[in-house]
């Protein structure tokens, strides 16, 4: 049996139990969301005891060096003792909601203003924390020079965070943000390399940032943006993206829906068939894939097989929050949140 010391108290862990699950099981509220080592909302710092290597996977070197680790991916050796110095609080920056507006029936644009320095690259993601500790990851659609951070939040029935944002949250409300994380961003240096950006739903958020960032940094090669939705009303920012394509000859915007009528410049059919038609030989390209995990993983495999190099494929799968002891966040879960 291993033990964890958290906020001046010792908690024992069952065999095979992560630090996060152990604390949640014993009623300790700890922010978390994906339970898969991706969102980083369960970040903690160890004061004493060995941190398994796996618990630091994906963290920045500076955080690793300071003994930060992800509680959901931390399984101490049997018999080991780990003392936690604190949660990720010291890394969290206060921010104020600036505006909340609908971009479409199912997508909310949330603008927030950090109250302290928050450096990021367009396309990375952050963790948004409500005052009570509820935590969810969102990709950033804005560019650093724009001042306010822009998020695109898909409204989910019974969604704890998206529901709160769409009904109760008001401009001026205080939240906290943590991050950024992720390697979905534009790197200058190869301005002629073709870029392939693809995502469905709010997967557009980071792609919107990456495409504009690349254009502003003088990218000269073709930039293809494929945005998929189930139905036409699932598409958003259509006019803005069309206008961007008018201004930049190398930017190609291809909206696509699974169901709907042909016409109006929207493709009907699967996103991956459209990509294959438009970009039949993507060898040597760079790709950014964001949004629905199944789509992201299947596109990634297809593009790899089509000749893209593994290191040139950047993917952010929007993993849903995982339920477990203690619920989806630091608060009770909605009754229908049963997965």
């Amino acid at each position, binding site marked *: 049996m291993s033990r964890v010391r958290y906020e001046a108290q010792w908690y024992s862990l069952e065999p095979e139990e992560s630090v996060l699950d152990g604390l949640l099981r014993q009623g300790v509220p700890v922010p978390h969301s994906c339970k898969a080592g991706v969102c980083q909302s369960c970040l903690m710092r160890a004061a004493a005891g060995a941190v398994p290597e796996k618990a630091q996977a994906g963290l920045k070197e500076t955080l690793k060096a300071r003994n930060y680790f992800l509680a959901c991916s931390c399984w101490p050796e049997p018999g080991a003792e780990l003392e936690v110095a604190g949660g990720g609080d010291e890394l969290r920056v206060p921010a104020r909601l600036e505006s909340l507006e609908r971009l479409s029936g199912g997508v909310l644009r949330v603008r927030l203003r950090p109250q302290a320095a928050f450096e990021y690259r367009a396309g990375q993601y952050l963790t948004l924390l409500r005052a009570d500790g509820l935590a969810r990851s969102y990709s950033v659609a804005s560019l650093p020079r724009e001042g306010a951070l822009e998020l695109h939040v898909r409204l989910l029935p019974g969604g704890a965070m998206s529901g709160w944002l769409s009904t109760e949250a008001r401009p001026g409300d205080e939240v906290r943000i943590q991050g950024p994380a992720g390697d979905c961003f534009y790197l200058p240096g190869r301005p002629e390399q073709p870029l392939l950006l693809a995502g469905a739903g709010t997967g557009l958020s980071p792609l919107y940032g990456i495409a504009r960032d690349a254009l502003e940094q003088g990218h000269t090669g073709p930039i293809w943006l494929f945005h998929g939705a189930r139905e036409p009303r699932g598409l958003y920012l259509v006019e803005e993206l069309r206008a961007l394509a008018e201004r930049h000859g190398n930017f190609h915007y291809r909206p696509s829906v699974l169901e709907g009528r042909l016409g109006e410049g929207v493709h009907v059919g699967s996103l991956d068939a459209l990509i294959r038609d438009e970009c039949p030989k993507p060898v040597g390209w760079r790709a950014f894939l964001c949004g629905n995990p199944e789509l992201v*993983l299947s596109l*990634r*495999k297809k593009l*790899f*097989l089509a*000749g893209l*190099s*593994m*290191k040139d494929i950047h993917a952010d799968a929007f993993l849903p929050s995982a339920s477990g002891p203690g619920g989806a966040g630091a608060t009770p879960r909605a009754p229908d949140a049963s997965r």
Partner: protein
Amino acid sequence: MSTVYELLGGAKAMDAAVDLFYRKVLADERINHFFEDVDMERQAAKQKAFLTMVFGGPNNYTGMDMRKGHAHLVKRGLNDSHFNAVAEHLAGTLKDLGVAAPLIEQVIQTAESVRADVLNR
């Protein structure tokens, strides 16, 4: 004699080799079901360990590790025909990288030397 690993340029060259090899494996209906992992990066890291080993690069794998590492695949039916397919892609990858035939032969022999361990015989 220098190893294929050194000849190709060491650790730096492994990413290109992994891309080529993993692409062949994933496209091969005979064996790709063994490699379907939602986490392609983790899977690629393992391919890298595999290639580094058979190319004669630094590794600490023992025959016992090979037994343990593939036992769950043998349970799923891993047999000589699959081994042969992997060896084929190994040779194909080296050919694509412009490695000369005698050296390819050397790599295939290294692979052959662990056949019994991989197949848990």
